[in-house]
């Protein structure tokens, strides 16, 4: 017998069952899939040939990001009256089969453009062809998830996995409206005559976050300078309600112009049939960086199990140094997780310093203090180190400075909280990434004897970073938890191809070899039966260049103390964080 609330749920599910997309959309999608499948057949598949090629080093193609920025930046206006205008623009964009965009880049003091880039967007087949700087030819094929990068200097074409999701020009309109709504970016709108046509001009500015602890630096660099502000100017033709010109000015933290990009977009009937039509020679050497299918499947399984982990819990995580066989706790974290919201209060060992800070905030920290004490009873030994709050979009961080908690600039983090070792999920499921993704699975004695799936990522030396290797052993019997994780940067790395790399580094004393191995030694299960690590050992060492080696041995213990609990009032509210001094 179902109760009233369950009946409402059944009605909601039945209502979901009544949802129908237009027949035209169904036919369009089926046809698109059919075309993609047919193009995959042997003899016609570029990818199949490519997959058998050798694997070497990959260069960055950061310039491609520009197209994504442009696509995002081409549309906006937050006020309700603009919705109709944008809806009209979106509908018109949906009808286009191809769009050609030419972008000219100018630097201050230069009259001529320093670069000219051309993009051809094949809307129906989800492909973008591009020529950068007149010579680098790219194909981003979102349907096949492949990214080809042709380099004329070496006459080779690197092919890698394209991870980004396709955003159609119309989809970008919707995403941008939402972005403006959630971030409250102000848009100025005006109407004017341009080249004899009535146009609507929209202008707005976006400000980027400073990276934490890195001074006035953001994660976007242009001409070697950090970009703090992007000023956009968009022109919509009132005759056809399509996007015409766009201009983006990139400014540094002092508001000085770094670069101006001017784009002009036009609908075209058709574009390049393939990348060779744009000038890639037929005898090009193809370098495949495409991972095996199996790697993708395992990574998806890992992500899928991680996403199913408890969506609300409270945990205490302690980290202890091993001293003469005894655990000596030196850090304790109290974690409150509710959906995307995450609050972590971090406490540290004081090493005989008096704790002048925690008593100042005893009320605001009460929720974590009371939960940490049972697991770190020597209360006089520890004090607050930091409070981190992620509200699903913004990251707030308070840290101890001058005997007070001081707030860093809040950071916008649409992709998740900024810390990799904050919550239970971080310790349980590992995603390998370092400039690239794992390309193959492998077996060794450890994986065979424990029934694990192993994958690795081993980039070469770069700048001041030693040859690096990350290895994850996932346990398919225990929800794909990472049972062993190895992170190493070695002077004498077997996978480093150029064995004389160290001779090319000037300040060798800045280099440090390090190796860490994390092993799960005890497991727990949630009430629903999902596995998680309860205890992890961490062993390894650090070896600064020319100095002696320092061994590290630690134990991390995860105490899941409540599942789907009632949370302390205000624990996820930025307004209820301890009152702080600004940094």
């Amino acid at each position, binding site marked *: 017998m179902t109760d009233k609330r369950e009946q409402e749920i059944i009605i909601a*599910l039945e209502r979901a069952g009544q949802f129908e997309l237009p027949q035209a*959309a169904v036919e369009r999608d089926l046809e698109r899939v059919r075309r993609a499948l*047919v193009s995959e057949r042997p003899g016609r598949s570029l990818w199949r040939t490519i997959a058998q090629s050798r694997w070497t080093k990959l260069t960055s193609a950061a310039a491609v990001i520009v197209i994504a920025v442009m696509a995002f930046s081409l549309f906006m206006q937050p006020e309700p009256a603009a919705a109709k205008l944008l809806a009209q623009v979106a509908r018109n964009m949906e009808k286009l089969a191809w769009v050609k965009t030419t972008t000219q880049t100018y630097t201050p003091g230069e009259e001529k453009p320093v670069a000219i880039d051309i993009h051809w967007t094949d809307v129906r087949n989800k492909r973008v062809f591009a020529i950068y700087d007149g010579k680098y030819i790219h194909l981003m094929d979102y349907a096949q998830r492949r990214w080809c990068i042709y380099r004329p200097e070496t006459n080779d074409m690197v092919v890698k996995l394209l991870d980004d999701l396709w955003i159609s020009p119309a989809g970008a*309109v919707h995403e941008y409206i939402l972005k403006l709504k959630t971030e409250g970016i102000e848009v100025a709108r005006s109407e004017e005559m341009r080249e004899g046509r009535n146009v609507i001009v929209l202008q707005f500015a976006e400000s980027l976050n400073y990276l934490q602890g890195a001074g006035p630096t953001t994660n976007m660099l242009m001409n070697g300078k950090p970009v703090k502000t992007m000023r956009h100017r968009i022109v919509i033709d009132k005759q056809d309600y399509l996007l015409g010109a766009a201009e983006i000015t990139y400014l540094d933290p002092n508001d000085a112009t770094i670069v101006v990009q001017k784009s002009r977009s036009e609908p075209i009937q058709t574009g390049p049939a393939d990348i060779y039509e744009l000038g890639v020679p037929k005898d090009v050497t193809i370098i495949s960086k495409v991972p095996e299918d199996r790697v993708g499947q395992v990574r998806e399984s890992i992500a899928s199990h991680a996403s199913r982990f408890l969506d609300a819990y409270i945990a205490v995580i302690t980290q202890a140094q091993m001293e003469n066989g005894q655990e000596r706790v030196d850090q304790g974290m109290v974690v409150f997780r509710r959906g995307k919201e995450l609050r972590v209060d971090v406490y540290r060992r004081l090493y005989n310093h008096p704790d002048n800070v925690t008593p100042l905030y005893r009320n605001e920290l009460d929720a974590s203090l009371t939960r940490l004490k049972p697991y770190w009873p020597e209360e006089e030994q520890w004090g607050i180190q930091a409070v981190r709050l992620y509200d699903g979009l913004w990251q707030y961080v308070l840290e101890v400075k001058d005997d007070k908690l001081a707030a860093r600039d809040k950071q916008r983090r*649409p992709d998740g909280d900024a810390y990799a070792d904050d919550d239970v999920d971080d310790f349980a499921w590992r995603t390998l990434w370092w400039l690239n993704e794992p390309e193959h699975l492998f077996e060794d004695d450890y994986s065979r004897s424990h029934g694990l799936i192993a994958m690795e990522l081993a980039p070469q030396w770069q700048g001041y970073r030693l040859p690096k290797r990350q290895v994850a052993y996932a346990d398919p019997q225990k929800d794909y938890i990472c049972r062993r994780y190895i992170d190493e940067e070695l002077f004498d790395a077997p996978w480093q191809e150029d064995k004389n790399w160290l001779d090319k580094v000037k300040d060798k004393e800045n280099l440090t070899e390090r190796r860490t191995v994390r092993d799960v030694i005890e497991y727990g299960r949630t009430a629903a039966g999902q596995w998680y690590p309860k205890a992890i050992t961490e062993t390894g060492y650090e070896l600064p260049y020319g100095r002696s080696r320092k061994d590290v041995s630690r134990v991390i213990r995860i105490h899941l103390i409540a599942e789907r609990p009632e949370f302390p009032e*205000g624990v996820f509210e930025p307004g209820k964080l301890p009152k702080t001094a600004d940094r």
Partner: protein
Amino acid sequence: MGQQQDKVLTLLDRHGRRLHRLLGRLTRSEDATSDLMQELFLRLSRSKGLEQARDPYAYAWRAAANLAFEWRRRRKIKLGPLEEDACEDEPQERPLGRLVRDEEVQRVLEATSRLDELAQDVIVMRFIEQEPYEEIAARLGRDAAYLRSLCSKSLVRLRQMCDDRDADRTDKGVSYDR
């Protein structure tokens, strides 16, 4: 031509519309359905599981449901109201009741995405696809009485998850109002 490719093309011809409808109903988004449909068949064309599957449609159905629920779990932004803004041709009326109902559907689907796989299958087949228990039992190779009981337990679980979320929202609303 590869046998696998043939198999996938046949699957597309015979069941493509049903799979498209399933994706549409679980995502309620034309863009997402289009993307996931491509993704689904791309995966199927490379999947060893399909090759070995006794019932390719059942295999594809599960893969489609997985993709849609995965999309729901990962989705960070709700596009519902904006899609309505963009639909100028539709009646301009936007009664509160419709919004509330739509939100309820989204919430229940999101909760369903967090159920176990078997429970997800039964809930979708029973209430969204309106299949009788006997048919579901045949498709899943399980006993109908067991599935009936599982369905009932899953409804209770869905109610708890939806109510938990309502409680969170209420808490937040109160505190923001202060």
